[in-house]
């Protein structure tokens, strides 16, 4: 585990993915995740690309897992809201350890009402599907939560969602 005091949140996430052999990164772009996505693209350890929709990315990662390659899905809150059918009819019943990172919007200074409403749906959906989720607010806990939860997901063949709070990432600020 890398020293968390000096590193930025996205450096910690990248290092933790690498130490867990999570090699395939599929994402739908997000402003807050941009430094992480950029660093992943620049690191040849990872195969990193964008999909057009979050459920498409979930399909790609499901196929890759079944064929022996670990991966992770990066998205924002509104993207997660497009996933319930695929999670309920593929990920959960097939016992796929889908590793999902959500850049949290809709809270702590959100300026778009639609994002707030979407955010309200996320944790109820995760709870209804029985999917483990962690809202990460503190950088000193980030590596531990992500590392242990990836290991648990793989060991128990169950998906996990990391909700990256604006308290961790800074979030997206309305330019007033």
């Amino acid at each position: 585990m890398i020293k968390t005091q000096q590193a930025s949140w996205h450096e910690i996430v990248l290092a933790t993915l690498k130490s867990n052999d999570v090699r395939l990164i599929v994402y739908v772009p997000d402003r807050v995740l941009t430094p992480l996505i950029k660093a992943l693209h620049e690191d040849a350890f990872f195969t990193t690309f964008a999909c057009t929709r979050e459920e498409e990315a979930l399909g790609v990662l499901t196929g890759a897992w079944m064929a022996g390659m670990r991966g992770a899905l990066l998205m924002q809150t509104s993207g997660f809201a497009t996933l319930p059918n695929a999670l309920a009819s593929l990920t959960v019943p097939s016992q796929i350890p889908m590793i999902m990172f959500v850049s949290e919007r809709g809270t702590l200074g959100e300026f778009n009402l639609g994002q707030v409403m979407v955010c309200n749906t996320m944790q109820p959906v995760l709870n209804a599907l029985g999917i483990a989720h962690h809202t990460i607010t503190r950088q000193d806990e980030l590596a531990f939560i992500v590392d242990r939860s990836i290991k648990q997901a793989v060991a128990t063949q169950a998906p996990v969602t990391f909700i990256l709070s604006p308290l961790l990432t800074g979030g997206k600020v309305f330019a007033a």
Partner: protein
Amino acid sequence: MSVPHVHNAKVMNRFELTKRLTSKLTHEEAVIGGIGNTNFDLWMSGQRPQNFYMLGSMGLTIPIALGVAIAQPQRHVVALEGDGSLLMQLSCLATVAERAPKNLTIVIWDNGIYQITGSQPTASAATADLVAIAQGCGIAKSAWAVDEADFDRLFTTAIAEGGPSLIAARIDGQPGVGATDRDPVQIRARFMQGLGVKR
């Protein structure tokens, strides 16, 4: 684009073509069967450990196949998908073209209807040309199979020469000839064993 237009293609039968297709698999190729009749006919064509039968998540056949192709570049992967399902997730064709996996062949069964839900017409019944869409997305090796012999030739070429390739076949409105056992964990576990994967 030098492909025959959809209306030059013969209307064939999905189960017959599925049997023709699986009879040509000699190197443990992976096959992803899309939701509904597509995977029912794949199941009835003879169960292989390298077959994955999708029970839900309509539209994700091609993305799942792409993921398998990325993870196992030495193995050829075949996605079997219906016209209605493809129309739900058309943009995955753009992603396939961008990633350009040589070991991926996409087969589209186009009957112009949502057969399993009551045969309502799809957009491909009269207007949308799925091969033209695939070519427009950047999958240059996309073609309509004009008859069974042409289907055989296109599929054999796709496996031998590499892709990504897309073959579309006009099919009749017959339902699947059977039904897949609906046990998602067993289907997933067998498929992983078939691909030689230990988690």
